[in-house]
């Protein structure tokens, strides 16, 4: 048993694990869904065996480093199981809804732990440098508190919104939204938001579709009063952007300003105002604080070990006095 442990925890096995991990990372032929996790698992097994076999790896800075590294790999595994990644677009004035999140990746043990209406989207702006280079993003949100109040917060750039263990990051994905009201000939009026494609990425394709109840669909185009000037420094502020909504339906074309309405089959469509939607990346990894703490402790342990080694003076005398430097 101890011979097996020694073999698994040997330097030779460690180097084999490193080579396997490296190959899984860079060689397309070795790259697969499970190749990297398997190689990392092998590294963890090698590390655990080495710690068990070599007392030296359980003492001092070296012990702190190797134990923290092993705990780090275990924490990564746990984090992956409970991890969540997704995307959501929220219109100004709208609330966070779990149902609106598009999942890109969810660990087997992930369960939603965030309430509907956990926060509300406020106004946002994005600065652009000449050449349409994105600078600062300031996204105002109102975060629901336990006592029922709403706490204002500005997120963006390096500052995510953290709510109930989930982190919301602003992205390049954001754009205009038209608030429109459908006024049917019979029945109640309904107000909603039509999201236009991401701006300025798709400034040439600001088009949305509106389903006219029982009568097919209308095509809506956003017509900004001032076209995008790529050479200028400017700020994208959807609510303050003068624009018209151009409605194409059944061969007719209507240009609506905020407050205008146009007749459509079965009712009227009113353009209330222009606003914006913000796209967020949603991230949750419950192991995140542990990962940081363990990584920091591992580095501190390694530094401690190296510092002790460096304290041992070297006989820096000329080679000639040592017999030619042999």
């Amino acid at each position, binding site marked *: 048993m101890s011979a097996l442990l020694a073999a698994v925890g040997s330097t030779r096995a460690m*180097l084999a694990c490193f080579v396997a991990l490296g190959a899984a990372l860079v060689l397309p032929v070795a790259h697969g869904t499970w190749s990297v996790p398997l190689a990392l698992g092998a590294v963890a097994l090698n590390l655990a065996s080495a710690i068990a076999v070599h007392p030296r790896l359980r003492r001092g800075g070296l012990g702190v480093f190797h134990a923290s590294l092993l705990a780090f790999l275990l924490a990564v595994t746990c984090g992956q199981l409970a991890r969540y*990644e997704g995307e959501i677009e929220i219109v100004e004035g709208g609330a966070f809804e779990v149902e609106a999140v598009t999942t890109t990746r969810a660990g087997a043990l992930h369960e939603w732990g965030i309430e509907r209406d956990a926060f509300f989207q406020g106004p946002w702006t994005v600065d652009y440098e000449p050449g349409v280079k994105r600078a600062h993003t300031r996204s105002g949100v109102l975060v629901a508190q336990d006592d029922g109040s709403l706490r204002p917060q500005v997120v963006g750039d390096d500052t995510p919104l953290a709510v109930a263990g989930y982190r919301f990051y602003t992205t390049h994905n954001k754009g205009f939204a038209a608030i429109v009201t459908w006024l049917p000939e019979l029945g109640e009026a309904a107000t909603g938001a039509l999201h236009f494609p991401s701006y300025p990425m798709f400034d040439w394709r600001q088009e949305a579709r509106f389903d006219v109840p029982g009568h097919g669909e209308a095509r809506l185009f956003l017509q900004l009063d001032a076209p995008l000037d790529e050479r200028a420094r400017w700020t994208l502020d959807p609510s303050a952007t003068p624009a018209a909504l151009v409605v194409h339906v059944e061969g007719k074309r209507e240009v609506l300003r905020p407050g205008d309405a146009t007749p459509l089959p079965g009712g009227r469509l009113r353009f209330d105002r222009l606003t914006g939607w913000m796209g967020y990346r949603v991230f949750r990894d419950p192991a995140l604080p542990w990962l940081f703490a363990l990584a920091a402790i591992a580095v501190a342990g390694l530094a401690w070990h190296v510092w002790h080694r460096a304290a041992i003076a070297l006989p820096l005398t000329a*080679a000639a006095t040592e017999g030619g430097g042999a």
Partner: protein
Amino acid sequence: MMPALEQASLWLAVMALAAGGSIAMLAFASAGGAPHPMHVDRAVARLLGVALALLTAGIAVRWQRIGHGPFLSMYEVLASSLWSLGLVFAFACRRFPGLWRTSAFVLPVLVLMGAWMLASSPADTHAPATYETPVLWFHVVLGKLFLGCAFVAVGIAGVLLARRSPRARARLAALPGDGVLDALMWRFMLAALVFESAMLVAGAVWAQDAWGRWWAWDPLEIWALLTWLLLAGAVHARLAWRVAPRTGALLVVAVFAVAFFTFFGIPFVSIAPHKGAV
């Protein structure tokens, strides 16, 4: 006017490095088989000092003009790396004066990097908003220290490898024996391992806040991890099998080569957005 001053400073810095490198190489290569005199080391040290001062001026002028540090284009990264590598080498030589004798091996690397910098586009760059965080400084400084320590170790590795030739052995006799140099070289590599590990942690913290993920296996992250694996593997191999100084020197050169490729090759051949989403 300002770009001209900036360009002139950087050109003169590279010329000073080239002069220092030439003197070091000529002194090493000149016939005679005896250690070169101390005034050669002093001349190389002064020229390196002049180059560092000029690089500082050039980088400062550019920084003041465009409003951000030298982190983005190849031109900027090479300029800041010339400065940091030169500075770490100068500090190491101040601590261990015998290391000036490794100038013949390290300064040519700086001269080549300088030539590469001068051939690169000096066009102004735009720093993404995600660069305005103190974590970036930790990440960058730790990365520079990592490469700097590996760079000093490469100079020592150059001595160990050159000593295969009897003539070079005689010229480098003023330096300690192979065993001591080997130990010193690996101390610098251990320091490099500490700094690279810390750089990876700082980078993950930055990436989490900037892009919403602490690790995404983008090409630069993969190669940074490969560098770490190679460095950690080399350190373990040296400890476990007590590799000979010259074999160790080859390992050090290999680690530095991979690190160099990670720093200066991957970010500019990969289209993955590790430089900040735009």
